[in-house]
């Protein structure tokens, strides 16, 4: 039991003291996962609306692929991205392996299918005549898309939460393509794993607390926005 209480006490001290390493790692995590989520939103909304709004052969296959993508094991994503970015790999000349950019790419591959799946489902749940009605009122394609996405903003917020949650909590891909380099590509999940492997539980617990708090705060904000929208 001492291990837990000592660890927690030490963690509180680290967080209060503003231990530079821990906070630097936290900020990097937010930056990497936040960027990956933003790119995923762009890609996911684009692909999700294309799948939801267009009739084409293989549409069901596309839905299945997106749904499979929503459950992609991060380790496999890490492996695929690592192969692509490896010095001798197809994109090796860009020298991206073991950089934050490589981690953003890997987390985007994890989060984009999640956002795509949520978007397609949200758009399919809208009134089936809504698009025709907007066109009938004189909307251009772009105006239609804007209004329809605005209409689906509550489930799209859920997509943001799920995408960010998936990105910031994965470890396999970040470890593999980032390399967990101190001061460069170390993020919260890889740092926790490293500290535990060294037997340093206190910093691991401190980072875990920060990670949980972060996920909690993001979800709290988005849920509050959702609730306000629903009641307005």
């Amino acid at each position, binding site marked *: 039991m001492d291990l837990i209480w000592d660890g927690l006490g030490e963690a509180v001290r680290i967080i209060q003291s503003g231990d530079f390493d821990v906070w630097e790692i936290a900020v990097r995590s937010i930056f990497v996962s936040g960027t990956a989520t933003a790119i995923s939103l762009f890609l996911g909304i684009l692909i999700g609306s294309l799948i939801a709004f267009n009739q084409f052969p293989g549409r069901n296959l596309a839905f299945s692929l997106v749904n499979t993508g929503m459950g992609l094991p991060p380790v496999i994503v890490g492996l695929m991205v690592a192969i692509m970015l490896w010095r001798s790999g197809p994109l090796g000349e860009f020298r991206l392996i073991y950089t934050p950019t490589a981690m953003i790419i890997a987390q985007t591959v994890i989060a984009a299918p999640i956002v795509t799946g949520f978007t397609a489902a949200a758009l399919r749940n809208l009134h089936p005549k809504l698009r025709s009605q907007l066109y009938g009122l*004189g909307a251009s394609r772009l105006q239609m898309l804007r209004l329809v996405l605005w209409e689906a903003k509550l489930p799209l917020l859920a997509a943001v939460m799920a995408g960010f949650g998936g990105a910031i909590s994965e470890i396999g891909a970040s470890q593999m393509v980032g390399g967990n380099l101190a001061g460069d590509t170390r993020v919260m999940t890889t740092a926790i794993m490293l500290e535990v492997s060294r037997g340093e539980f206190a910093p691991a617990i401190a980072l875990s607390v920060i990670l949980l708090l972060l996920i909690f705060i993001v979800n709290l904000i988005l849920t509050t926005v959702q609730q306000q929208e629903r009641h307005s």
Partner: protein
Amino acid sequence: MTQAKLSLRDVRVRRGRSELVNVPQLDVLEGEVLVIIGPNGAGKSILLETLALLQEPTAGRVLFEGEPVDGRQLRLRRRMAVVFQESAMLRRSVVDNVSMGMRLRGVPRSLRRQRTRHWMERFGIAHLAHRSALTLSGGEAQRANLARAFAVEPEVLMLDEPFSALDQPTRDDLLEDLSAALRETGVTTIFVTHDRAEALRLGDRVAVLMGGFIRQMGTAAEVFAAPVDEEVAAFVGVANLGGGRVRSLADGLATLDLGGATVESAGRPPVGAVASSPELGTEVLVCLRPEDIVIEPGGSDSHRTSARNHLHGSLSRITPLGGQVRVVVDCGFPLVALITKQSLEDLGLRVGDEAVASFKASAVHLIPRGQTAARLGGR
């Protein structure tokens, strides 16, 4: 001659292997209310969506004021407005929904506000302005839907079964308001429905669409009084259809055998039908609209009216239908009449009573037996 506002030429719409619409020619005239009527699955909505430029025809052309629409769909869509059966409101206030069409078309804010207020008042929803549109009842939402369409001041207004999801009293009210708004604005209108009463009420011209083809086109009176063939007759609600034989022809009057009774018909050929006047001895289909039949109690034999036909029988069934009553008189064959509730009470008739059904020879419409009219404009 009135100019055609919107036209179809050799238009076909296919989905997969099935052809849903085949219209060689259709002209919607400037300022008219054209009703497209037909049973479910006739292709009415697809035809409307084609005219509204929401659906590309598989083949053929759509013309706006005589010019092909190609490449100007968005611009032309902004000169029209469409109202669907379901109002598909946005998750916004009623006033935002009503002004949405104008916002999409870039109408300036002050004008937007003025027209929104006007049309919300016209359709009786001004008091709902700041409610969320998703909380409206079916009737209220459809009022908002109509206000939204009129507010853009379209040159062509298209309505796809706007009232079919509503209950009867709401439907009557809305029909009244729509009819007044159409008269006032004089907007070119295409109104799709499967409801005969709506077609009669609103239509300057009626097109009967069945199986993707326009089977008959004419004024509402023509189509309803003189359907072109048996199928159209059955659809437009000529409840009394019976096989008869022409016994004699004299002075423009045909005397017919109809289930043992003798009936006289002015016997004009139906509008658009291939047949000419009936010939002696030919089998014909006798059509008689329920509202053209007058009912009186049986017993008296002196009928001093201009009606040529008086059939005696007994009342076999009475069914209330809103303000009216559907009465079936058994005259050797069942004859359906539509009379008001008040008339029935005044007459004091009950099931089993003797009754006389009278109707004018001109109300009896004849269709050559077993013939389906050529499809209008078909090849």
